[in-house]
């Protein structure tokens, strides 16, 4: 495993380096100049030049890029341009809320996905299977802002069971925090749960048709035990790959869900950064997201080999 890691890590680092260059270059291609917008409409050219010098924007492109990489390596992300405060502080504040939301959604994805797949593959009633198929099609097609608003209209506005949006710290008030978390997490989880459910169902249907399942049935092993001990574990490896890909989707989807439910996470920070042209915030955030994506892919490969002993780390 260590040699496998040693082999994979350099290529992961290379992807990150390439991504950092692309992100940096793209942001510098933006027609507007942050110094001009920061200085305000009445500022003279000297004031703009002073701001450019203070932010280091008058330096050559590659010097700026190298400076940014150096800052990243030392962990000093510097001040934001427009939003205010240190970038590391802004990201730190948002990261907690986003991780909380994503983890809760991931838990729901696994639970709901397994449930959808298990019921879909083992039910003997055609209408149950048909209803599940229709439900997953609808959930997959409908955008999260539609499900989000529908969830708010039903559970917050009509039934008054849950708050329509906002955030509460888990440490201060755990019970309130869960109430605030439930709707956004469900909204974020539904499409991924539907995809996972389809893969679990397909995998289970395939393994349930295998010879060893027929042998176990013939030997009188109860059906529940066959599913739990024989069919399900063998259906899981592709599911893990899909789950890994879905983590990336969850992080991307969080941007939208955070906007719907006024959730103070990285998505809101990214949105603000783009709208207000805050270079440091946007470039650090984009790189962080690519970094998480690369890391998740690496972890997926490792888990894959752990689940299926026939696959070797090479």
């Amino acid at each position: 495993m260590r040699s496998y890691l040693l082999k994979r890590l350099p290529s992961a680092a290379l992807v990150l380096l390439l991504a950092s260059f692309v992100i940096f270059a793209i942001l510098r291609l933006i027609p507007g100049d942050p110094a001009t917008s920061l200085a305000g409409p009445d500022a003279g050219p000297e004031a703009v030049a002073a701001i450019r010098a203070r932010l280091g924007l008058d330096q050559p492109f590659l010097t700026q890029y190298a400076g940014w990489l150096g800052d990243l390596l030392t962990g000093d992300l510097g001040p934001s341009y427009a939003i205010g405060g240190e970038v590391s502080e802004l990201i730190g504040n948002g990261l907690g809320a986003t991780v909380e939301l994503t983890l809760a959604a991931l838990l729901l994805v696994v639970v709901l996905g397994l449930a959808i797949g298990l019921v879909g593959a083992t039910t003997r009633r055609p209408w149950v299977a048909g209803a599940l198929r229709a439900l997953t099609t609808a959930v997959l097609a409908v955008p999260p802002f539609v499900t989000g608003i529908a969830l708010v209209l039903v559970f917050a506005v009509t039934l008054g069971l849950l708050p329509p949006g906002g955030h509460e710290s888990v440490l201060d008030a755990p019970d309130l925090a869960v109430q605030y978390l439930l709707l956004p997490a469900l909204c974020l989880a539904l499409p991924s749960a539907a995809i996972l459910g389809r893969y679990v169902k397909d995998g289970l249907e395939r393994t349930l048709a295998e010879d060893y399942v027929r042998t176990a049935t013939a030997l009188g092993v109860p059906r529940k035990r066959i599913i739990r001990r024989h069919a399900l574990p063998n259906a899981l490896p592709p599911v893990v790959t899909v789950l890994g890909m879905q983590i990336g989707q969850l992080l991307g989807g969080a941007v939208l869900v955070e906007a719907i439910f006024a959730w103070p996470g990285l998505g809101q920070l990214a949105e603000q950064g783009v709208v207000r042209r805050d270079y440091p915030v946007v470039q650090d955030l984009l790189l962080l997201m690519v970094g998480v994506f690369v890391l998740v892919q690496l972890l997926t490969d490792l888990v894959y080999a752990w689940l299926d002993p026939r696959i070797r780390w090479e």
Partner: protein
Amino acid sequence: MALLLTRRRRPGLLSARGLTGLALVGAVALAGLFAPLLTSYDPVAQSDLALAGPGADHLLGTDDIGRDLFSRVLYGIRTDLLISFTAVPVGALLGCAFALLAATSRWADMSVQRLFDLILAFPGLILALAVTAILGPGALPVVIVIALAEIPGFGRQLRAGILVQREREYALAARVGGASRLRVLVRHVLPNAVDPLIVQGAVAMSVAVFIEGAMSFLGVGVRPPEPSLGSILSQSMAYLSTHPAFAIAPLTAVTALVLGFALIAEALNKGIRR
């Protein structure tokens, strides 16, 4: 006799699924197309009557600055369909161009595949934020993001089709008959490999409405006063608890379009695979 008793399942678009999808998309699209005939209100004209409920004067009520909601939703459908019908063909053509390029040499194939991987590696909304960061908000970045996002789907689909068709006997026969590689590719292989692209087109339309809604909802797409389904939804968010009716019409239109196109895609896919 037994043959008569088994229910015949109709293939493709005429299946129950396909007809449902066609009905959903057709109803919404017709409403958008005939918007000027269905309402006499200007979608951007403001009035003093803010946040009125549904009634005889304003079929769905008015929004927060007194614009007629029914009219805004109808013209919003127009905006959405215009954006989708511009962006999806652009993405499809680019994707197909890349797939053809990939078919010319092994090196080109490698490069094109990596390009598709790169596009797919960016979660859609991150791509949207990045493009808007460059161009500023508006309808154009929405079109560009949709087109970019659709390239790999069309490209991979056509590449797979070309790989299969190229090994068929008719293609080999044309080659033996002295046709150049390019001629075989364009005149013989390509026409036989495009069928699955129709399915991909329906999927892409569904995704396009999705992306327009998401971008305008986040405030990086179509900007008010211009109506689009996403921007109306985004506006309605502030009044969800006091005026839920505000959100329901754009919500229904988006759902019908996205679900309709998805159903059409599934039906076409079943029809082709038979």
